[in-house]
């Protein structure tokens, strides 16, 4: 599927791990072509170990493809690593809060990298903590917060830098059903309100249907099995049909 204005583009991307000379390399991603449009909310769905996180790391510039080209906003995120400072933010599967920093200091982390003055940094961090219902906990250390609260802090940290691209690696999978649902709704609202482009990795079909305005199902090694678009007016019956289709692909 081609996208009018792709902001993220993967062109015949392959990623293999291990020593290929020894013949022991493992292909996590295999000749993947993918385009993500500006403002799009893409849900990447696949079984555990299908290479979702590898794709994510390549888009984030944390790992380099073995072959093929990855571009974000027309630049290589791995080689032009510093050029993406403040432009890509990540919400990880677990909160990854620095234990030696309070909630507000954790949210300020990305802003420190952007050399934002301390006063402004604090103001922005407090704004996002407020939006995520954490006022009153800003001076708590991570160990004093519940799992849901910690994940909220990590979402606040990602939003605080006002990055255009949000990469989310199963951020609600470690939470209980109710907390996950509430946070997901808050997250969706924030993404839409702020006009972000988001790539959301998940292994839950329901989560993908709830979040994505586009769903890509990956086969193993990572390659597109189906690419589906969801409109706002997609009915429950149509969603059920899509769910069935995804289940069939994942069962293969």
């Amino acid at each position, binding site marked *: 599927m081609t996208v009018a204005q792709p902001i993220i583009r993967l062109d015949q991307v392959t990623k293999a791990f291990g020593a290929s000379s020894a013949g022991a390399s493992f292909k996590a991603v295999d000749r993947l072509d993918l385009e993500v449009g500006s403002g799009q909310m893409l849900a990447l769905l696949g079984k555990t170990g299908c290479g979702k996180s590898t794709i994510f790391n390549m888009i*984030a510039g944390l790992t380099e493809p073995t072959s093929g080209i990855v571009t974000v906003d027309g630049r290589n995120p791995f080689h032009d690593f*510093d050029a993406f400072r*403040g432009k890509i933010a990540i919400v990880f599967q677990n909160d*990854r809060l*620095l*234990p*030696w920093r309070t909630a507000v200091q954790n949210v300020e982390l990305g802003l420190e*990298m952007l050399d934002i003055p301390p006063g402004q940094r604090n103001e922005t961090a407090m704004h996002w903590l407020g939006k995520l219902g954490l006022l009153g906990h800003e001076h708590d250390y991570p160990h004093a917060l519940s799992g849901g609260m910690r994940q909220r802090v990590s979402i606040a940290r990602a939003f605080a830098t006002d990055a255009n691209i949000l990469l989310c690696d199963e951020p609600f999978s470690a939470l209980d059903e109710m907390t996950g649902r509430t946070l997901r709704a808050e997250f969706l609202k924030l993404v839409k309100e702020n006009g972000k482009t988001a790539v959301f990795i998940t292994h839950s079909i329901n989560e993908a249907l709830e979040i994505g305005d586009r769903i890509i199902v990956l086969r193993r090694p990572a390659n597109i099995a189906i690419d589906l678009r969801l409109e706002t007016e997609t009915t429950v019956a149509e969603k059920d049909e899509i769910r069935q289709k995804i289940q069939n692909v994942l069962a293969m």
Partner: protein
Amino acid sequence: MTMSEPQAARGATKARGAIWRRAFSYILPFVVVASLWQIASLFFPPFLFPSLIDVFKRCFGILVHWDQLSDVLATVGRILAGLAGAFFIGAALAVVMARSQSANRFLSPILTLFQGIPALSWVVFAIIWFHGIEPRIFFIMVMTTLPAFTFQVLGALQGMSRDLTEMVMSFRPTRAKLFRVMIIPAILPDIMTAWKVNLGNASRVVVVAELVGATGGVGYELLQQQQVFDMAGALAWTLQLVFFVLIAQAVLTFIENIVFRYRAVSERTL
């Protein structure tokens, strides 16, 4: 539900009792050793077991006489300078070793070799290689504590959480900021432990270094006491170093309590 007054009073009494028991269990071994020494002093001549009162008087004398106190301070200065030197060199080596596998492969055996060389051998080498007293002692202190500092900092760097490092890297920090926000706070607990461990080692090594190659300091003074068979003096000078180590450890613990207050404390301890 709130606690009733008698329950609260019982709780407070229990807590006070626990503090006293802890204090008692800490002091008891010292009291037993001191008592045995004092009893021995009644049956043996003072050059073997001097009275603790004499030892205390000598200790006090060292603290109030500048010419003697300056010897203690010189030793303390040598310990701290040696440790600081070893720490900075060791930390730099550890960073290089953590970044480069080949540097690690090259330096690890050398440092292991250094670790196997006795402190006394370094004293002999220092006397042969260097002229001044201070460079000699500094060299000995650095060489004897360098491997431990290097391996401890290296271990801390290698043990850093990959998840947290990746998270910080996702914000694309400059190298200086990565050090400030991630690396230093992550390895600080191990650095503090390394200082605590090496402080004890250094205080033992400095005495050997001063004993052989110095004209001042606790080690030199111990040699003087040995020549006149003055056990009270020997004990008093030794205690100066013990006091220093205890004070330094207390300062480090105090710093740890402030800096590492973010750590969660489990009610069920090890």
